[in-house]
């Protein structure tokens, strides 16, 4: 008896040791991967901190000899591409469209995932089909539609459609997630006479944290970085977004790499912060009340 527990203890120790070795190896692999995937970012930052002259005269990999923080100052204070105004525009567009996407795509996904009605699967096919036509060929009719609504040179075309479905990609993502949540609990609630709105709002939404965080972050980033849409829709210089503003540093024959890179780093920072804040929902968002 005693012997046996000793053996058991030993093997557990051994397992623990192998586990910690494995964990260490894993950590090494992860660090190596991070280094590889961050190299481009490193180049971006390094380029953004060199003066134009030094940039032209040095290797891409070399650290700056003199740290030219003035590039950042120049980007932030350039009157030809007012950073803070563009920042404000980008924040407005990205925030509201993200709200719209999170709100409407979760509702629609619930309808597709957890309710049964005639034509459901075929309607879903139609939903998916809206992703399949390249945007270039619908650009002009779409633009004419915005003109008809009087929405050209406003943020509306970039925000309002988000409240109407939020896009096939997001609906599909949430639908898949919802279809993975066991049904027993909402069936019980239904028998108790709860309405679908109550089930959605009270029972399922709290369990959709990771998926909702994903959709939220994706759509914020998508709208933050979107170039073609704002380019076509917004005319006035004061309505432009950060991503459009960056283009000013690579205008025809006038590439200013150091400013382009400084601008790109500045544009990335808010998203990194958002991601750092949002990503804990990927893990902690799982309240899984009652289901587990």
């Amino acid at each position, binding site marked *: 008896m005693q012997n046996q527990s000793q053996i058991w203890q030993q093997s557990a120790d051994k397992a623990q040791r192998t586990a910690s070795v494995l964990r260490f190896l894993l950590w090494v692999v992860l660090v190596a991967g991070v280094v590889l995937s961050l190299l481009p970012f490193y180049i971006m930052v390094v380029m953004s901190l060199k003066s134009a002259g030094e940039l032209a005269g040095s290797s891409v990999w070399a650290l700056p000899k003199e740290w030219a923080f003035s590039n950042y100052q120049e980007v932030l204070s350039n009157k030809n591409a007012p950073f803070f105004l563009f920042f404000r525009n980008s924040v407005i567009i990205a925030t509201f469209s993200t709200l719209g996407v999170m709100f409407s795509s979760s509702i629609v996904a619930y309808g597709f995932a957890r309710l049964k009605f005639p034509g459901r699967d075929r309607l879903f096919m139609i939903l998916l089909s809206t992703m399949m*036509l*390249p945007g270039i060929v619908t650009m002009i009719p779409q633009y004419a539609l915005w003109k008809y609504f009087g929405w050209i040179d406003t943020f509306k075309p970039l925000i309002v459609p988000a409240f109407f479905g939020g896009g096939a990609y997001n609906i599909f993502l949430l639908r898949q997630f919802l279809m993975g949540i066991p049904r027993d609990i909402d069936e019980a609630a239904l028998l108790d006479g709860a309405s679908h709105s109550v089930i959605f709002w009270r029972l399922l939404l709290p369990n959709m944290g990771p998926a909702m965080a994903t959709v939220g972050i994706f759509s914020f980033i998508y709208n933050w970085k979107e170039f073609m849409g704002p380019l076509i829709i917004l005319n006035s210089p004061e309505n432009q977004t950060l991503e459009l503003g960056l283009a000013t*540093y690579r205008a025809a024959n006038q590439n200013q*790499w150091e400013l382009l890179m400084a601008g790109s780093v500045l544009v990335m920072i808010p998203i990194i912060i958002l991601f750092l804040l949002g990503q804990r929902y990927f893990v902690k968002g799982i309240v899984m009340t009652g289901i587990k």
Partner: protein
Amino acid sequence: MTRLRFRLLFFVTLLLAAAASFANVTTVRFSVWDGDKALETIRQLVADFESQNPDIKVKLENYPDYNLYHQKMLVTYAAGVAPDVVMMDPQHFQALAVRKALLPLNPFFEQTPGFDIKSYYKPIVDAHSFQGTCYALPRDIAPMGIIYYNKAMFKKAGIPYPDGTWTWDFKIRPELKEKDFLWVCEQFTKKNPEGKYVQWGYTSGWTGLFADMIVYATGLLPYDNMESPTKVLIGSPEYAKALQFAADFMNKFHYAPSVTEQSSAFAGATAQALFVQQRVAMYQNGIWEVPNVRKLLKPGSKEFFEWDVALAPAYAGKDGKKVLKFPTGGSGYGIMSSTKNRDAAWRLCRFMGGEPGMIAMAKAGIAQPAIRELAIKPGLWVPGPNTPIEEMYPANRIVTDQAVPYVQFPTTSQYYQAITDRVNKGQELIWNGQKTAAEILKENAVDAQTRLDFLRKEEALPPFNWPLGIALCSALFAAIVVWVYRPHFGKKLTQLERGETRSAYWFLSPWILGFLIFTLVPMMLSLMMAFSNWDMILPAQSRGLGNFNEMVNIDPSFWKSLKVTTVYVIFSVPLGIIGSLGLALLLNQKVKGVSLFRTLYYVPSITSAVAASLIWLRVFNAETGMLNFFLYGPNGNWPIGRMLSSWIMTDPSKPVDWMATEGTALPALIIMSLWGIGGGTVVFLAGLQGIPTYYYEAATLDGAGIMQRFKAVTLPLLTPTIFFTLITGMVGAFQAFTQAFVMTQGGPNDATRFFVYHLFGNAFQSLRMGYASALGWVLFVIIMLITVVQWWAQNKWVYYEAETK
């Protein structure tokens, strides 16, 4: 009471209208592609114009991306909201002019007292004219026969500064010394002890620039008529000789750095960087580089050296007669025919493209005036006696004037982009020495001629039959609705089911409304356009099935692009799924700093596309790239690399030049796509969180090991997420565009000509939106079919916890 209010309202309105007409301020929309410093100058000019013309308000719009500027103009014109005054150039005006989207300016010239178009340089006026009518008032002319030279390097080598009297020939002529351009170049070519070239005599802003100069100076032109070409002439042996010389100049004689050498060591603007680093003594480009070079070589800074500009050399000539000829660029201002304020538009046009505009642009060092009198005025363009040191360089700006009589514009044909795309196809392979000029040009001559003949051949087509189109689309819509509900016809729903259906439609209503309002009509319109011939400017014509026939039987790039895209999908999608799933599993472990890791792995997905493409070009660089470092080792002789070289490269002694080799460009883009797996990883992480932990607990109690738990729990419960990634990944990969647009332009030799890139070229470069729409719908059908198959197949492998059949 109400009546009184109405009357009051009426009078107020009348009063307001009267006041408005009294002030009579018209607004003119004015769009330019300038950014930053040039935009600043334009803004100041607009302010000056407004203060001089209180009856006109100018709304300045800028899209600082040359290609997308033209695209946006077409979109706005098609929708009837084009700007009034637009920046134009010789390569783009004709397509608009022949369709009457631009106003002819000659009537304005004649009506304006004191205006004389003859005061402008003739070549730039001609370049903006079609059949004798001018469509854009020139803003500047930019001959590219300007050589920036490093005075210090010349002094050190004991060579007199170039004075523009030098010549070049296909062979070096040492007896002429500094009067022979090749001899001068050779004096600066240097190797380091390891035998690598580290210094050269010359480089041009881009390789095609030098090649064009050789072509033009030897009396060749790519087309029989540069305004309205009918024959493509690039198939001749002389033409091949000229391009081959441009390639040998770099690769054989080493007078100029090779393409790889250029791109290996520098961060951004390559040719210019070589000049600034004092690794080339001479650098050819247009005068517009001056503000940049001034900024890089600030007097008093570490980088500074004395420099100036000189006229590029003339061709010595076959019979001893010197020939001067340079490529050139230039731009102007045009008026869109949709404008409602012709007079105001012309006044703005004349201001910007007249003395005030040119003086301001010249003072900023941005553009040489297109009015000769201003271009030669000391103190304005040419430095005067009291010019401050910052503006002193270059001192010899007068050469820009000397160059003008010898300029050659590229074709101004309305088919410019469509045919140059074919003429230049695979040229990068000449420059990097993988193919000879004769090989490439022989094929391109045929392709370009076929394309030109095709575009020139006007089909007599009837106007588009809108009632029929709308009727068919409505019928299609009705058919789809029937298809959706047909299985349920005649079935009676129980009350419970009816209730559920009702709730379902409430939940679906945002999407259904959005689909009907925002998506359906544009989709239907583009479907109709797929059966039309539509240039976005003139009314659409009916083409029946002509577009589809063209794809299958006429357009060789259709099959090529379909193949390229399919290969891309087949490799990038599964690799992406495996990569992101694997990474998600790793990042789901309890490891120190895992949350930080998650963020860091996501960083690549949010890096700006431009920055990323810059960086990738360096990763894949043949000589100094990171990838080749791992394959060839520090000394370049590792067996894997050698093996790859002998397998892929025509010259096995060279390392693989990933982005510029036909066989490896697409694989390189596939590798690149893996860099963005952070997005898929996030989706999988979310999916992993959705797996209830009690399944794992149960499996562990049953004695399952790590692998068994993965196979029995993780994988099955993750299948809905995998399915999602598969479908959306495939949809996205079929529509890949940005990489080709930003990095490869579809090259080399169409090796990365993605389907949507081909579509884009047809839409906005050839102005064939009808054909592009047809392409778009073919892609739609392909993606749809694959999706349907996968949808059907998912029953076999996707496990849904909460499936409702």
